[in-house]
């Protein structure tokens, strides 16, 4: 455990020294500022046009889900780009050689890197996500039903991709690991779409294959969990009523 802790701390130090944390902080401030400004403008225009508060709340909830979709994509890419070189580049550059000659397991090195990167990703997801939700509430008065759960789902989606990227990077070069991870993310998302279409047309085999893919890479399922947590109860009830 001590080795994992040392390497996790080393990973966090690396993120700080290589300005990854600063880049993420600046990205958060820029994206939250822009989206909040946009939502504030939309809400003001809707109020001037005489829309009801209920209509505005539902509208804001849908825009927030769109923002969350963008954020989910950014998080997924961040996870892939942080995870892919984590082990592979240490091996390629030789940095890992001297460390592995110490009385630690190879698994300690991988686990330590994983813990450090998960801490960074979760902190980024929680910080950005909650800041976005708080800012939207400030300008529109809308608060999603389960904000913390939504952030947890989004973080979990990123952690799943980070884990895949890191596991791949123990066997593949960094670039290949990142590329495979991005493709897997896309396939996971497409599986979710195909599963929905398959269910609509009652196409059993299509649903089975799509569901199996979603189990292998659960990023799409976690994304749907995030939507569910952000969706106002009224919209959920309406959707259930339609089906």
């Amino acid at each position, binding site marked *: 455990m*001590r*080795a994992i802790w*040392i390497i996790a701390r*080393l990973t966090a*130090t*690396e993120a700080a*020294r*290589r300005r990854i944390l600063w880049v993420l902080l600046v990205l958060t401030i820029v994206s939250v500022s822009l989206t909040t400004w946009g939502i504030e403008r939309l809400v003001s225009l809707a109020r001037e046009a005489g829309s009801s508060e209920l209509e505005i709340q539902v509208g804001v909830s849908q825009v927030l889900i769109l923002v969350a979709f963008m954020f989910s994509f950014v998080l997924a890419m961040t996870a892939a780009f942080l995870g892919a070189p984590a082990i592979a580049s240490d091996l390629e*550059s*030789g*940095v890992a*050689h*001297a*460390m*592995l*000659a*110490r*009385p*630690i*397991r190879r698994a*300690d090195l991988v686990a330590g890197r994983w813990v450090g990167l998960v801490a960074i990703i979760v902190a980024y997801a929680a910080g950005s996500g909650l800041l976005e939700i708080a800012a939207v509430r400030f300008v529109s008065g809308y608060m999603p039903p389960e904000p913390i759960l939504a952030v947890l789902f989004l973080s979990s989606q990123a952690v799943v991709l980070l884990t895949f990227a890191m596991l791949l990077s123990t066997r593949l070069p960094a670039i290949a690991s990142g590329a495979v991870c991005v493709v897997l993310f896309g396939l996971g998302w497409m599986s979710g779409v195909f599963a929905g279409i398959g269910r609509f047309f009652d196409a059993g085999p299509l649903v089975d294959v799509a569901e199996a893919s979603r189990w292998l890479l659960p990023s799409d399922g976690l994304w749907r969990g995030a939507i569910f947590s952000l969706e106002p109860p009224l919209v959920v009830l309406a959707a259930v009523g339609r089906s």
Partner: protein
Amino acid sequence: MTADPAIVDTHGLAKRYGRTDALIDLTLRVEAGEIFGFLGPNGAGKTTAVKLLLGLARPSGGGGTVLGTPLGDRATRRDIGYLPELFRYQPWLRAREVVELHAGLRAVDDGARATRGAIDAALVDVGLADRAADPVGGFSKGMQQRLGLAVALLGTPRLVVLDEPTSALDPVGRADVRSIVRRARDAGSTVFLNSHLLTEVERVCDRVAIVDHGRVLASGRIDDLLGEPTIRVRATDLPPEAVAQLGRFGSVAVNDAGWLLFSGVDAERIPDIVDAIVAAGGRVHAVDTGRATLEDLFMRLVGGGGLPA
């Protein structure tokens, strides 16, 4: 009689990667307190052997012990310092932080972390005390190699494995490393030195092993491997029968360049040899003492000439 336990003791160690035999039969014994040179051409299996000794790879055959424990024992690595051939350290850390990191990793099992004093001593020993607070990313290759030496020597490990420790250093740096290696030996470490630089090895090592194609071709004390010194005399106008008479001093031969080569002769007898040549009507142009170098031996062995009788 029971022999002292060896620091490294391997028997028929083999390693196969797919269809390639990286190591076929490595049988080695490194005694406590010696500087052991491990030599071989590229692809001889040296780095594979180092990986097996450190437990970074598993042997396909054979076995052995390092510091009295079977190969691959993780806890034993606590007592081993290692400078890899491909030395790279986190460029975003300061030199002192790199050594501290390894002090922490070395003590993950028992918590007996190297003290601040030991970390300072390692940096002073390799000449990096005044650069300890500088980021490693700004270091030259030679300075990074010195940092790697500090990491390897940290806390005076029982076994220090140095893989090409002078590959990035200038002549002054190489001389420093020779001193560092001797100091490590004097402090109680056994040094396993893997190097291409035969002159360096000859100057610093007590014993060597020469490997090629995954096998040990020769091993032993350098003096024993290189044999006795040779006296070379450049003489002209010497009748052939006089050459035979010079055999009374010891074994004598004439090489292609016309030099008389005396072996097994004490250098104190050089004046007597010169007198005998002159008395026989010969003229002496030059006298030279020396013996085969490690490079001569290495070239003869890896070139397929075999070990001299």
